């Protein structure tokens, strides 16, 4: 039975090409099919890229219109001149930065995000080194408890953390926006994976010569880990820049309000000024996008691979 079935399959496979028309015609059919497939492929890809990009074009076009143009000069087609302003109104950006305080919020966000990045990189490198290289009692247990904290939705932590930060007297001050985010299980995990790959012999020989663990970390491990540290830094920066819920709760004055809160406030208060909202949105997204484009390949790889690892 088995033998018969197998030979049947083999026969079918052998016969199939013969059933087709002459070789020349077959080649022509295959070529035209490949061209059709290729056309469809580029059509689908362009359509997807168009959908992904049209909101940005809309944002750019409307940030440069006059208030009147945002209502009267409209089109769904970015190839039509109606989509774009007649004369670009660059002063919209000046107005958003100065009159709507976006410049102040932007500076706040830069300080908040940089401080957080520095904090996360220091605490995570130290902990990652310990979990990758040092042997101490309970390290596996502590590590898995840390990883479990990744599942907790932030919203659940909002109320108790607000009470803690208020008790510490941090409301409306910089530490409220940075310190709670300086410890992160995710980045400890990420860096630990990398630190483990550094050859043990390198570290052992340095230790033999009497270098302390801290010195090994600073002078050997960190210089070898430029790429993962940069990636971690970018992801922390982007998270911190993006944060809205927590800053809404802990900043009741403009002093340390970050740009996400500033923009959200502006949107709910700006009334019909579409052009200023879009200018504000562009100002808010520019730093992250510039960083991303500058190191796109590396960040893309990192995001792709963390997806699999976690």
């Amino acid at each position: 039975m088995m033998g018969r079935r197998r030979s049947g399959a083999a026969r079918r496979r052998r016969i199939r090409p013969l059933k087709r028309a002459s070789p020349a015609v077959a080649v022509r059919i295959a070529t035209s099919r490949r061209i059709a497939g290729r056309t469809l492929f580029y059509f689908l890809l362009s359509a997807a890229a168009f959908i992904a990009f049209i909101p940005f074009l809309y944002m750019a076009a409307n940030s440069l219109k006059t208030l009147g143009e945002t209502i009267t000069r409209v089109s769904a087609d970015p190839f039509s001149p109606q989509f774009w302003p007649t004369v670009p109104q660059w002063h919209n950006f000046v107005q958003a930065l100065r009159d709507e305080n976006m410049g102040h919020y932007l500076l706040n966000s830069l300080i908040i995000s940089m401080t957080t990045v520095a904090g996360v990189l220091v605490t995570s490198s130290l902990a990652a080194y310990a979990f990758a290289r040092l042997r101490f009692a309970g390290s596996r247990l502590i590590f898995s408890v840390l990883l479990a904290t990744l599942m907790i939705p932030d919203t659940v932590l909002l109320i108790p953390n607000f009470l803690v930060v208020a008790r510490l007297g941090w409301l409306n001050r910089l530490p409220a926006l940075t310190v709670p985010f300086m410890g992160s299980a995710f980045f400890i995990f990420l860096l630990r994976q990398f630190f483990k790959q550094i050859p043990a012999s390198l570290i052992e020989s340095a230790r033999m010569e009497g270098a302390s663990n801290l010195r090994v970390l600073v002078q050997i491990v960190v210089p070898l880990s430029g790429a993962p540290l940069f990636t971690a830094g970018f992801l922390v920066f982007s998270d911190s820049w993006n944060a809205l819920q927590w800053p809404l709760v802990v900043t009741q004055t403009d002093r340390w309000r970050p740009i996400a809160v500033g923009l959200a406030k502006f949107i709910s208060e700006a009334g019909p000024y579409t052009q200023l909202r879009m200018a504000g949105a562009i100002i808010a997204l520019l730093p992250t996008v510039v960083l991303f484009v500058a190191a796109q390949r590396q960040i893309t790889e990192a995001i792709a691979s963390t997806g699999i690892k976690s």
Partner: protein
Amino acid sequence: MRSGGLSRRIKENLEGYAFIAPAVGLIGLFSVFPIFFTGYISLFRWRIRRGDFVGLSNYLVAFGTWGNLAILAAGLVLIYLALRLLRTGPTGARAARVTVGAAALTGGIALAIVALAGVMRTGDTDLLTSLRVTVWYSLGTVPAQLALGLALAVLLNRKFRGRQTYRVLFLIPYIVPTVAAAAVFERIFSLRPEALANQVAALFALRPLQWLYEPRGIFQLLFGFDARISAGTIAVGSSGVGIVAWVLAYLRSWAVGPSLALVAVGLFNWWVFVGYYALIFLNGLSQIPKQIYDAAEVDGAGRFMILRKIILPLVSPSTYFLTLIGVIGTFKAFNHIYILRTAAAQGTVDPMSVYLFFTFFHQARFGYASAVAVLLFLIVLGLTLLQRRLMERRTFYGE
């Protein structure tokens, strides 16, 4: 010699603790301790300052009566047992097991519906609405994003010029700060006829829609069966059979479907995440050797067969990961909804996280909001465990 080794080991231990101390201290204070503190707060009447100890009565406000909670718990246990019964190995009388399992499943679902109908009548209706919004939001985003993401990944997996550029390009919606992207979609989905979404709608000969300002469900808008159902509810309600009327009222709240406003929020979610999903899938796809496709083609496998028998099993770890973070993501969703929600949508786009935020921050009901936080935490924990059990056995991690 021995004492030297011992002291060195002690030193290494101490050094280890010193190295992890900053991170562990911060995570302990701001992520672990708050879990217990939330539970503590939920036992008090707490409006900005701590008030009286009220025991579990904040939870009673959510559920209405303890009877509702008991029926809900019974229903969930029954559903769990039914699923276990239906899944166990091929031993024993199969037909009998399936019959009993199906009956238990139906009974469990019925009990849960009765309990939730009771909550809608006596408990916190807004909380129940936010839970329904969360479920619709998950159902409307995660499967579609998986399908579109996989399709895009299959396209990007081919070799063509500019492949890397496209990969980066599709990731930009995910990278952009959420508030800024949502600010654009808030304009795109505005109710004015010149808004971009309404211009596109006009291409399909549709009248301008209300989008983010539309609280009515899409099934209601599409089929207009609302009036008929309401009439039926009133007829049964006046017939005096109370419990039937509540259950019908509860089922009706589902039957109208997600609001058009929530659909608009969901479309924003697609726009943000499809490129990211594609990137994760691409990582899985690129690990499938080309010979496997060739072998399949030689064996006469069609495209659908290749998708079902090769691609889907081999990307299943990515599917599992994306489903998990996608569903948990709907319980965390905040930034874009804060920007896109309108008063006119009447809370039909507010999932649990947003409802919790407003209860805490605008109404200053710290105690009750903490009780909601505990429930949210339990739901996320339950879903994570359930998903792990359901999907691990179907996931192919390679030999």
